[in-house]
């Protein structure tokens, strides 16, 4: 990782390259060993070209699919297939954004994206996206299942209690349920504390075939299962606001891994908004549909709980540079290595990562990563 929080004075490609260098060194490799590249960016349509040029790579495998913030979880699947087909030997997955401190501001970038890729049947009503789309999802979940604003606040407080154990987290100040409920309202039922951070940050990791990864300096994390699902783009075209494509991506990942929810020790869930982890524990089979609020409010996702969620503090409290997926993967790998210091959870052998993308839980990518004990 590099440039997390504020990277004032740096461009996004600069901190991406710093993160790439850190990941490649961590793997005991040199830049010249990288022959596969997966990357995406919200502003540049042909971003792999920018990255290959900047890093001086001539990769034989290139993957630039952008399905939103879940992209860097989704990239695990084509990277795995390319490695097992022998197309390449070492794939660099990397991302970077300086959305917080960039001099060309967030508003101007968002306006430019809306002009280039309009949503003509939604835009006239001026939803404040992405918050308004997830707010519509949360309102429906509350209506159907009795989920409350307190349940949503529990997600933010759980994330913050992990962030307080992580010196690298952006927001570490104590946060209570009342702090969340009484904060400035953005788009009902969300206050600012129900919404993820807006930070800079870059992250990268390297994928190799399992036999080659054995000889590296760090203990590898193994990809046991991966599945991706896309059902819609806009919230107005989401078939059921209380059900996300994670039902499909999760089923695919469990099937590949030969695992079930009760085999999983820890979750790294893309928490763009507080409703997301509630939806994902339901859609990924950790509780029944509608019970996600009380499930998380029971405290089992906080430090010391039975099913830790977002041990780095997540996008709500650790880091959220527009697309978070790569950081969820990195935290899973760090926990499997036992490299997490105060926030390390003992006996972590199987971690489920769920990436979320688009304005309305539109794309989901679920990966299950394991230690050598799970092989």
């Amino acid at each position, binding site marked *: 990782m590099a440039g997390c929080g504020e990277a004032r004075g740096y461009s996004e490609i600069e901190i991406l390259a710093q993160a790439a260098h850190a990941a490649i060194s961590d793997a005991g490799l040199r830049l010249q060993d990288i022959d596969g590249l997966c990357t995406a960016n919200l502003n540049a349509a042909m971003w792999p070209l920018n990255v290959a040029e900047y890093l001086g790579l001539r990769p034989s495998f290139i993957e630039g699919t952008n399905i939103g913030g879940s992209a860097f979880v989704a990239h695990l699947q084509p990277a795995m297939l390319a490695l097992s087909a022998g197309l390449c030997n070492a794939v660099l997955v990397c991302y970077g954004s300086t959305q917080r401190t960039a001099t060309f501001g967030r508003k101007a970038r968002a306006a430019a994206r809306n002009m280039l890729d309009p949503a003509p*049947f939604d835009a*006239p009503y001026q939803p404040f996206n992405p918050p*308004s789309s997830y707010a519509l999802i949360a309102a*429906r979940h509350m*209506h159907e299942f009795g989920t409350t604003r307190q349940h949503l606040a529990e997600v933010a407080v759980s994330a913050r209690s992990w962030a307080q154990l992580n010196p690298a987290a952006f927001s570490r100040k104590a946060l209570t349920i009342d702090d969340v409920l009484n904060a400035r309202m953005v788009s*009902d039922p969300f206050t600012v504390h129900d919404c993820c951070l807006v930070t800079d940050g870059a992250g990268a990791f390297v994928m190799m075939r399992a036999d080659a990864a054995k000889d590296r300096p760090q203990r590898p994390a193994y990809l046991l299962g991966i599945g991706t699902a896309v059902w819609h783009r806009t919230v107005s075209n989401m078939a059921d*606001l209380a059900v996300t494509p994670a039902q499909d991506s999760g089923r695919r990942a469990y099937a590949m891994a030969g695992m079930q929810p009760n085999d999983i020790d820890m979750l790294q869930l893309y928490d763009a908004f507080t409703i997301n982890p509630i939806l994902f524990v339901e859609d990924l089979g950790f509780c029944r549909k509608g019970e996600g609020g009380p499930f998380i409010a029971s405290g089992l996702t906080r430090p010391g709980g039975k099913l830790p969620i977002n041990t780095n503090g997540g996008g709500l409290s650790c880091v959220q540079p527009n697309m978070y997926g790569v950081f969820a993967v990195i935290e899973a790998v760090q926990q499997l290595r036992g490299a997490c210091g105060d926030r390390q959870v003992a006996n972590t052998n199987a971690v489920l990562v769920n990436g979320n993308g688009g304005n309305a839980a539109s794309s989901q990518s679920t990966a299950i990563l394991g230690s050598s004990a799970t092989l």
Partner: protein
Amino acid sequence: MNEAQQVSGPEEAYQRALDAGRLIIQRCGECDRSVFYPRTICPHCGANNLSWFSPMGDGHVYSTTTVRRSQEDGGDYNVCIVELAEGVRLMSSVRGISPDRVIIGTKVRTKVVKIDGKGLLVCEAK
């Protein structure tokens, strides 16, 4: 060239009708389901024979949010998803009542208004 002869895709045809004060949506000739937003093929069955009709205009609020905005920028406003009696859902806004009074289940009627010369579908609480 008169209006009937004018060639346009479904998106343009839909907006032209709105500009003339009329709401039209599509129905599939194969699976008989209503379709929104306007398309060249049916997202339910893949058929390409969609035809226009005028929905009754009755619906209810499927989900809703109040977008908070400062008073000087115009104040808070409603954004909702409305389900029409014909089964389609669309994004809209309930006008005429304060946004905090719009709740899920609120019965609404569609209404076409003109904003800057362009037709826009909004809803009124019944």
